[in-house]
């Protein structure tokens, strides 16, 4: 067991955990806002995949990761527009539209990628992480904790900002009202559809950026179906966090740790079959649900479309 606590193992585990957590954090924060407003966005898997594809393509063509993130975010936003039109404006079934969007995105991205690159898988140069001065030179944990891609720090800031937004701003309270009692929000003179649309669009944008991180920074290549359930994990994180952004942050790091466990264990010289390691994050969610599940709450109007005057 001594090998488990070497610096190399810890560095691989923590560094890997944070790197794996970033896309989950973005997806989870976006989904949380959407769920707070009462919209279950199952299409987030498709939004992430679209972001991953568009972001990769833009970064590949322009040689700029930043352009990739922008385009990836925009692609996610575009999916968000479709989702908002269908599920908020028209009030269509959110599960049906969500599955439709995920399926379409899977088909479309693999078709487009195949027609552009056939079976070549071009890769992007490894991005340079941003080392925070001083902190990154702290012993043991410093290098792995504070030498990350800038989006990791941005995600943490976003998380704090959302925490403030939900509790202290009119918009945050409107979001909660749109999810809990849309009729009250409507009576108060605030547009339910408008509030929900903003939430869904933000969700699309963040999912797109998270997806772009996955292909640009995470692996440096785009592979069809590469999100591999990351969006669904985001949904679960949002549901488990019960409306608190810090919960999403904590959950995504724990998930990331499970995901990076394989590499870390290999560094430590322990070989566990990958399939067993792959089960860890999902087994953890089940465990969390069994232990904390009874207290998990969802907004009262979760999954309902709102129609003025409808009973």
């Amino acid at each position, binding site marked *: 067991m001594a090998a488990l606590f070497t610096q190399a193992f810890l560095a691989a585990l923590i560094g890997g955990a944070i790197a794996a957590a970033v896309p989950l954090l973005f997806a989870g924060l976006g989904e949380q806002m959407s769920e707070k407003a009462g919209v*279950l966005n199952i299409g987030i898997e498709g939004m992430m995949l679209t972001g991953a594809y568009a972001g990769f393509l833009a970064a590949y063509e322009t040689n700029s990761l930043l352009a990739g993130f922008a385009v990836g975010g925009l692609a996610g936003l575009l999916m968000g527009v479709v989702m908002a039109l*269908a599920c908020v404006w*028209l*009030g*269509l*079934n*959110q*599960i*049906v*539209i969500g*599955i*439709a*969007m*995920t*399926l*379409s*995105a*899977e*088909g*479309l991205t*693999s*078709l*487009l990628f*195949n*027609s552009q690159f*056939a079976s070549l898988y071009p890769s992007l140069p490894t991005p340079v992480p941003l080392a925070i001065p001083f902190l990154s030179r702290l012993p043991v944990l410093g290098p792995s904790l504070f030498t990350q891609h800038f989006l990791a720090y941005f995600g943490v800031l976003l998380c704090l900002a959302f925490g403030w937004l939900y509790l202290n701003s009119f918009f945050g309270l409107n979001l909660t009202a749109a999810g809990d009692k849309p009729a009250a929000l409507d009576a108060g003179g605030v547009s339910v559809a408008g509030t929900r649309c903003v939430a869904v669009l933000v969700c699309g944008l963040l999912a797109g950026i998270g997806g772009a991180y996955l292909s640009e920074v995470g692996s440096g290549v785009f592979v*069809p*179906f590469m999100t591999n*359930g990351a969006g*669904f994990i985001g*949904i*679960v994180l949002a*549901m488990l966090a019960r409306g608190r952004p810090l919960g999403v942050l904590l959950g995504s790091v724990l998930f990331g740790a499970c995901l990076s466990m394989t590499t870390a264990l290999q560094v430590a010289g322990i070989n566990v*079959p990958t*399939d*067993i390691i*792959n*089960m860890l994050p*999902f*087994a953890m*969610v*089940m465990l969390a*649900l*069994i232990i904390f*599940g*009874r207290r*998990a*709450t*969802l907004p*009262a*109007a*979760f*999954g*309902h479309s709102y129609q003025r005057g409808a009973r």
Partner: protein
Amino acid sequence: MSTEPEILALRAEAPSPWPTLRAALPRLAMTLGPVALAITLSGAVLLATGVNPLAYYALVVRQGLLSADGFQETITQAGPLMLLGASLIVSFRAGLWNLGVDGQFLLGAVAAGAAAPWLVGVMPDGPALVLAMLIAMASAAAWSLLPAYLRAHGGINEIITTLMMNFLGLSLANVLIKLVFIDPATTLPVTRTLPVPDRLPRLFGSTVDIGVILAFLLLTATHLALTRTAWGLRVRLLGANPRAARHAGLNVPRMTIFIFILSAALAGLAGAIMVLGTLGNVRADWDPGFGFVVIPLVFLARLNGWAVMGLVFAFAMLSIGSQSAAIRLGVPQYFNFLLVGLLLFFLALVEYFGQRARMV
């Protein structure tokens, strides 16, 4: 505060037994309209990537429907898809979102693949195959017990739990194949192969096995049980309004668990007939992902068993045909996901505008 499934419950109207032609025509138009739109838009995407969509669709139809081999493959493929359809109809009509059918399907396949080669060695083929199917159904049902229990007694949203159990099931299937049921005779991660003469009997000298007949009968039985029996009425009541179901004196938790078991067992049987009829063994990392495409088809069929049969057949043709197209035209097979996704989207839209038109 509420996590009741009613918030997500699908409004499924009970189909009238013998719809008159007058009533059937708008329904038909509402199904064919989205199909035409989806085919057109996907065709436009194909055109944009430099593939002639007409040539593509013609090839799909020729390979999946008009060639003798392709037609038999299509029919065979429709078997497991029909069973998955039956599995989903049962749970969706009860307002329970069993999104874990892929995991249940795979575990059923692995259980059947592990049990059958051993069973045919110790007993005659007939009982051995039946027993293998029962083992597959029991394994899949056991896998659904945790989400079922959590839903019934903890009120925990089954969408998350079944999705998680789905991912767990995919990995567990691989673990079982690689570590427990691996064929000692080969170096590949694959279960022992069921000898061809011991597989499910084939029909009239074709390559189609009786699995598809079994699937047809079970889907029919499921549909009739849900629409024509008192039990079916109770299931639909549960789906329409669980609170009302409780007031009507139904044992909601017990029904929930039973529905999950039934749904998972049907999904497991789908995996079993695929292994016992066509494949003979299960490879590690094999996951056809049928569940996620049958879900939209079941919606498209508005939870009606007959419509599921038609759609599943069409999808089987599409998927067999697109396998050839993938080789000949270089269009990835996953292109049909785009087609199905768009189809679902347009269906929801057409349904919405249809309802509005009726209200005005």
